[in-house]
């Protein structure tokens, strides 16, 4: 057999695990730096609680954005859509007198409808997503101005405001921690059992459970830190739920797999029987739904819907994905990375503000970090 050349040399394999550790390392360094600069005032329960809350809105959008980017698309309209869905929910509450649930549903429905419309234009009319959503960026902001007469819509519904400003009771937090830990161990057990059943790997259930200790410990630590301040902030809870959903979709569903396939090689995906257009339509709708949810959180946090709510959020979300290792060419990226990217961005914002760095410098530094993160990544990928 002449075919002994198994793996060509000079082709560097991206290991997602290594990349995740690098990002975690970067996050830790950023935290240590600000902790030192703020006189030990950064890594405190109160600040971490704020930091997580600040991450939530961008994080929720970034998870949807990640899926869109993985499929080889982009959505520039999410900032304006956030403003629109927020305005609709505020109008439902304040002007139309609907209840909390209706307002939440309204925001999500607005997100889905806009997502479907834009996705339809991209998938079935082959208009580039960049153009469709750039148009959306302009148009939806215009709609916001139109329906609010360019004025802020206040929200007084207390239940609604609680979504953004309240905390989960510490006891509930601990119950969630318990459930979370049980879930982690259950999944590890199930996976090991399935592997054993199918005769794969060592199928060592004991070893699998030991490996689950680390994530379980992380859950406990997280809840402990949040409870040391006031409990899990509601926005953070929603963010974590969305992250779980996103993780599940990308890892455990055929839909998720097809996203990666379409982004990796759309022609190969099409010839493998995938309905590329339908998948792209769905992923835009899914992002729309997430943006609607993020709009609820955002509006509730601020206690009102402003005309410029969500401005530039699209760039934050894209930056979070990219810092988290998502390829804008499609086919590559993880929900975990996008969340971590969002957390890194929020940490920079939070830290730079708390050391009173001037606003212009903050912008410059964030820009430089975004480009450097991707630059380092490209150097790492370059074949030697």
């Amino acid at each position: 057999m002449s075919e002994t050349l198994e793996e060509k040399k000079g082709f560097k394999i991206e290991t997602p695990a290594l990349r995740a550790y690098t990002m975690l390392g970067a996050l830790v360094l950023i935290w240590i730096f600000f902790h030192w600069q703020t006189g030990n005032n950064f890594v405190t329960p109160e600040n971490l609680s704020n930091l997580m809350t600040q991450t939530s809105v961008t994080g929720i959008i970034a998870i949807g954005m990640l899926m869109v980017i993985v499929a080889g698309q982009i959505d520039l309209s999410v900032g304006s859509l956030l403003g629109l869905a927020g305005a609709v929910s505020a109008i439902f509450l304040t002007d139309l007198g609907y209840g909390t649930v209706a307002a939440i549903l309204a925001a999500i429905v607005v997100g889905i409808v806009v997502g479907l419309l834009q996705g339809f234009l991209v998938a079935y009319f082959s208009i580039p997503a960049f153009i469709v959503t750039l148009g959306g960026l302009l148009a939806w902001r215009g709609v916001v101005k139109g329906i609010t007469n360019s004025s802020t819509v206040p929200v007084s519904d207390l239940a609604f405001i609680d979504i953004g400003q309240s905390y989960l009771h510490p006891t509930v937090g601990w119950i969630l921690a318990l459930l979370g830990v049980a879930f982690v161990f259950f999944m590890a057990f199930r996976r090991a059992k399935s592997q054993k059943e199918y005769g794969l790997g060592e199928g060592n259930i004991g070893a699998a459970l030991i490996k689950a200790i680390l994530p379980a410990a992380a859950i406990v630590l997280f809840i402990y830190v949040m409870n040391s301040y006031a409990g899990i902030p509601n926005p953070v809870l929603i963010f974590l739920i969305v992250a779980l959903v996103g993780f599940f979709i990308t890892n455990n569903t055929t839909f998720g797999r097809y996203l990666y396939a379409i982004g990796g090689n759309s022609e190969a995906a099409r010839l493998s029987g995938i309905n590329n257009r339908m998948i792209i339509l769905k992923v835009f709708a899914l992002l729309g739904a997430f943006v609607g949810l993020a709009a609820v959180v955002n509006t509730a946090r601020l206690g009102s819907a402003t005309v410029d709510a969500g401005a530039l959020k699209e760039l934050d979300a894209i930056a979070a994905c990219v810092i988290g290792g998502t390829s804008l060419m499609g086919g590559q990226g993880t929900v975990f990375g996008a969340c971590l990217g969002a957390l890194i961005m929020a940490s920079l914002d939070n830290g730079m503000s708390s050391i009173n760095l001037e606003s212009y410098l903050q912008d410059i530094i964030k820009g430089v970090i975004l480009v450097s993160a991707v630059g380092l990544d490209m150097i790492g990928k370059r074949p030697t």
Partner: protein
Amino acid sequence: MPLLEMREIKKEFPGVKALDGVTFDLHEGEFHALVGENGAGKSTLMKVLSGVYPFGTYGGDILIDGEVKHFHNIRQAEDAGIAIIFQELSLVKELTVAENIFLGQEPSRFGVINWSEVYSRSAKLLKELNLPLNPRIQVGRLGIGQQQLVEIAKALSHKAKILVLDEPTAALTESEVETLFAILRDLKSRGVGMIYISHKLDEVFAMSDRITVLRDGRSVGTESTLALDKDKVISLMVGREVGDIFPKTTHDLGDIALEVRNLTAFDPDVPGKKLVDDVSFSVRKGEVLGIGGLMGAGRSESLMSIFGAWRGQHSGELYVDGKKVDVASPADAIEHGIGFVTEDRKRFGLILGQTILDNSTLAGLRRISGAFLTHRSRETVATQRVMRSLRVKAGSPLTITGTLSGGNQQKVVLGKWLLTEPKVLFLDEPTRGIDVGAKQEIYAEINKLAASGVAIVMVSSELPEVLGLADRILVLHEGKLTGEFMKTEATPEKVMVAATGESKVMV
């Protein structure tokens, strides 16, 4: 002294000897045709000549006017007077004729282009060549034939002494071909040496002074055109024994698995141009049906249309197991038990950045996992099963496919379709660019599939492959069915005659 001499040119790709000591020469004002089957090494030889493969990556010498030349890039070859016109045109469609002609060599001062000179020199050049073209028109608005002429003008603006034409007439209409030939004759009279690669023997005999036949990376003869005839050339082209790499198997044929009636497919870019013209055929369970023909004969287009993946307009009727079915998308085709190992695995077959597991389970994902949720363990087991049965050499199912050799990549594509458990399997150039060992393994798998009752339709440009494997061979030429042969009656000559459209064998 010849204008060009290529001595003992050798070129190897991993696992494949593409050129094995080819010697070739060209005189001033000579029209030298280079013919051979697909994969014989014609294009590789021309890429060596034009610096696409730089000096040092091949063996042997290139001499121009008796002087040894080392081309490290295309530019150096151009400067030495070599111009090559590839099958795919390398023009920028958005630019004008003149801009294209001078692309990369614009007359300029301090980076500022002298447009009057660009247009006046272009006009002069076009006039010299008797090309009836407006230098200010956008290339994209010209027909393919005229674009070809722009290519030639561009080549000659470099003061080319040697002009290489790779299948220049493939996309041209008859009158465009006439125009082209008139211009080539004119160039010949001015002393330009021309190397002409073509499958169309009529053209070769009408135009050439000498003919060189390549086969399996070797030159099997250079003769004056007057001393040759078509039969002689065809026998030189195919004159190799069908080796024993094809296991001698006879297949038991069952009922008709797939029947295609009146299939017609149009070019999506050129309205009204038929790429497949009223083709009907059927294939039985357990049968290997080979489809021969030359590149551009409409073979891949036929399969794509049947599979519901052709982007252009197409029509025809499809019967699976005797029942009429509608296939509007690849998903429909898969639903009806049709699988399609597409050509060009890097473009159409694989997601190179993803793992063997991700790739091999893609087409059959719903069958393996379920409609909504993926099932990691079942996918891993399925992947391991095909990796074992096809002998994919890789570390694990999680190896990235981009790191695999061509043969292993091809096996992953095949494995992907085996996991859809097809009743009818299309294979388009299933062994292109892979080494003999992997080829043999794929042949063995094809026979195994046929033995298990799968109907196989295999398109291949490698004649020995078609003759060695197929129970029955169909031949297409310019979209039409021009021959049908049973295994026992098929000979390389007969197939080649039908493939070059030399005579019509009624079916």
